[in-house]
């Protein structure tokens, strides 16, 4: 009886190993199961979901106008001081002084893509872009000014 149990043990052990071997042989011989994405080659066909949080950008329309009033809601919402808004005073045609943004400084190297600034923005001036290849050789390149040169605030945005 001892011998029988011993042999049984050996066979059940071998069977469990054979089951595993069959599974790996299946994958070895079925190459259509391969899930590797060949990343730099498939760059053109990569599709990112439109909610993907890659970096913060400011939306500009065709007239080089944005919707940022410089209210600093995003700056306050940001947990790690990623956004710094530098304001200036524009002179309106009526001769009044009006607050506007000079520079919308965005530190990509500090950003954790938490989306709080985009949620906080009352005028939907900023949004998350789907870019993701952020590596640069110089750290200073990661500090970006989001408003384009000579852009101004869209009419009617308060």
């Amino acid at each position, binding site marked *: 009886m001892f011998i029988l149990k011993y042999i049984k043990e050996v066979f059940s*052990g071998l069977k*469990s190993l054979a089951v595993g071997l069959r*599974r790996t042989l299946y994958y070895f011989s079925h190459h259509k199961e391969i899930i590797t994405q060949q990343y730099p080659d498939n760059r053109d066909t990569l599709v990112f979901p439109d909610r993907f949080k890659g970096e913060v950008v400011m939306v500009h329309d065709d007239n080089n106008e944005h919707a940022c009033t410089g209210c600093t809601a995003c700056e306050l919402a940001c*947990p790690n001081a990623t956004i710094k808004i530098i304001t200036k005073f524009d002179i309106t045609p009526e001769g009044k002084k009006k607050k506007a943004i000079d520079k919308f400084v965005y530190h990509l190297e500090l950003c954790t893509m938490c989306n709080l600034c985009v949620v906080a923005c009352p005028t939907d001036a900023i949004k998350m872009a789907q870019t993701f290849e952020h590596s640069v050789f110089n750290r200073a390149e990661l500090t970006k000014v989001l408003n384009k040169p000579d852009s101004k605030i869209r009419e009617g945005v308060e």
Partner: protein
Amino acid sequence: MVEEIGSTAAGDIIINVGPQHPATHGVLHLVITINGETIQKVEPHLGYIHRSIEKMCESLTYRQFIYVTSRMDYLSSHINNHACALCVEKGLQIEVPSRAQVIRVLMDELTRIASHELWWGAMAMDLGAFTPFFHAFREREAINDIMEETCGARLTMNYMVPGGVMQDIHPNFQSRVKEFIALFKSKVSEYNELVTGNIIFQNRMKGVGNLSAADAISFGCTGPTARGSGVSCDIRKLYPYEIYDTLNFEEILETGGDSFARYMVRVREMSQSISIIEQLIDNIPEGDFQAKTKAVLKLPKGEFYQRVETARGEFGVYIVSEGGTTPYRIKYRSPGFSNLSALDHMARGSKLGDLVAMMGTLDLVIPDIDR
């Protein structure tokens, strides 16, 4: 470790496992004393990746501090965020819309499956089988894609906000989740073929790393680690939050108390999470995804505590508020820290190879232990 050399018996060797070591999945530093292959003592040394998250949170507002908790237990980041959001809601007495509650639970359970998938692969890799790791990632990738579509990120989503969730679910969400459930169900038998049933694996797991129910309680173990020893500790059952009390699921309990029992708890938990998702996915109520909240959140003066069940065990958030916009003090009760403390007790007298298996079954995430 100079100071310990004097205290060792003859023939004992002290080995530093970590902070950089393939078995520690991160930067856990264990100082182990061995005699031959037999472990005499295991001393975890923490502090290598301490980022003082609790202190950081004191300077962040109640909306901002949530995202930091994704960086603790990064494999159950949704659930961590969830705990913080719940705690703030408790303080502000916000009623969360039922749609948001269902979405939160769905996300939690998806996260739990993703976490257990990764654990399963890493566990097998600890034991020297590399293939399951890649196979587990295939299913986990499907969850990550769902997360990416709805939350916009794959690992640290920051989707839970006080009052609900940040955005409504993506229109594709339900169909994608159903696809995932079908994929998972078709592949789960492979897990048994490759790992669970394997005679080598069973011999490595059964009877090692014994942790009795009494010890599990006294070490403060929670989650699958304690449930493997037969301790009922599922927060979703004992202190239900959100809609868990209306759901029909089973708390997985194994009585073995060894590495294999802990392994089986996690594997069976994945199917329970699938069943929770199946119950909810077609029944997401219409309505708001977020309650109306004030622009600036101020918690009333007092102390607030909220516990949730993460993939690793009980996670607690303790907030002391002085009535301002930022918390006066925050304390996190992380499951990994308590679970790790049982390692020394479990490992004494077993072999070096078993230590790796035990660490695998504890499912340690180092940033969670060392905040």
